[in-house]
């Protein structure tokens, strides 16, 4: 009787174990890996912000440079290594790839045009391939950090001067954003770029919603070129040039 009961018990145990294993394989407990993977997102975003701040400020010093992506590449590699070392066991590959496209070169887009708009942006895709004896997991997400500015202005003749008004809007990832500071230049008739500051009655009116009205007096006649540069609160620099026509 004991032998029979043992045989029946073993049969039942093996059936239960088989069903349990099938269920485990079906669900494969993806949720913890998903959330562990997604918890890396703020780190990646902060790395992109830090790198873009560095790249855009370097580009300000050397505008023809157009954005040196070496900083971004080095920072992303360092981050990927740190995350891979600290977060996962098993066979794990955590890769951050900067975007290469018609607009982004090695993940960086610095476009400070003369058409009244400027963009400083970085873009990268993040992928995780993980496997251990029990499971395989693969997932990816994309991260974009963008600071953009638009500038539009007009000027009014005021004796030998022009009173210039420029309306600026600042964006972080398409949402209105606040500026930390502005740098404004205008082009004199001789071609020199002159800073607009307190000596030119510079006034910046902050509407609190990412919109700024910048006004100053310029020693010029007629339409003039104005360059508006801004640091956002993340220290990312962006610039736009616009032509202010006379009212």
């Amino acid at each position, binding site marked *: *009787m*004991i032998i*029979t*009961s*043992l045989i*029946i*018990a073993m049969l*039942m*145990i093996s059936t*239960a174990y088989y069903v349990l294993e099938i269920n485990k394989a079906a669900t494969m407990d993806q949720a*913890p890996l998903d*959330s*562990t993977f*997604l*918890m*890396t*997102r*703020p*780190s990646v975003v*902060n*790395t992109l*912000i*830090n*790198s873009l*701040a*560095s790249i855009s400020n370097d580009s300000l010093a050397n505008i023809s440079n157009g954005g040196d992506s070496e*900083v971004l590449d080095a*920072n992303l590699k*360092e*981050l990927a290594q*740190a*995350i891979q070392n*600290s*977060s996962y066991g098993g066979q794990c590959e955590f890769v951050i790839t900067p975007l290469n496209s018609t607009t982004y070169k090695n993940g960086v887009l610095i476009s400070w045009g003369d058409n009244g708009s400027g963009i400083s942006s970085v873009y990268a895709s993040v992928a995780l391939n993980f496997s251990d004896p029990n499971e395989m997991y693969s997932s990816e997400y994309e991260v974009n950090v963008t600071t953009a500015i638009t500038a539009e202005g007009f000027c009014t003749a005021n004796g030998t001067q022009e009173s210039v008004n420029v309306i600026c809007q600042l964006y972080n990832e398409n949402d209105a954003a606040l500026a930390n500071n502005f740098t404004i230049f205008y082009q004199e008739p001789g071609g020199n770029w002159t800073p607009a500051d307190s000596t030119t009655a510079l006034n910046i009116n902050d509407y609190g919603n990412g919109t700024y009205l910048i006004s100053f007096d310029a020693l010029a006649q007629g339409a003039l070129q104005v360059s508006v540069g801004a640091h956002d609160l*993340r*220290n990312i620099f962006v610039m736009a040039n616009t032509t202010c026509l006379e009212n």
Partner: protein
Amino acid sequence: MKHPNRNRGQIRIIEAFFASVLMLSTIALIPSQTIVGSSNDQFLYSMARNVLPTLDNDGSLSKLIESQDWATLRTQISLTLPSSVWFNLTIFDENMDPISQALISRGTPNGRIVATDYVCVGQVGNFNMYIVRLQLSTVG
């Protein structure tokens, strides 16, 4: 005509079946207790994974680390976690040398401790990375 031996054999098989059910139910009781323990671990682990990225969404975690404002950091984590949860936070630099000398902790742990590491990056200034280790348990 009845065969007493055959009946006895059938009864033995039924007995064996019940005996095996008894054995199985005894076996089934043992893992059910460990499941309770591991589901609590999963709950704590899930919390640990969410707390630090949430604090770091606007870059405030790295700012607190860089300014070494451990008191504010402790308060922010305390506010995020239920009062029944014990925590201990340790911050390391890239070489895994601890940089937080103060004890960033609350309560006394009771039972198993779960831990998660989070890589934190500063938004502003030099590119600095910190490994933030959060340990959670139930309060003793």
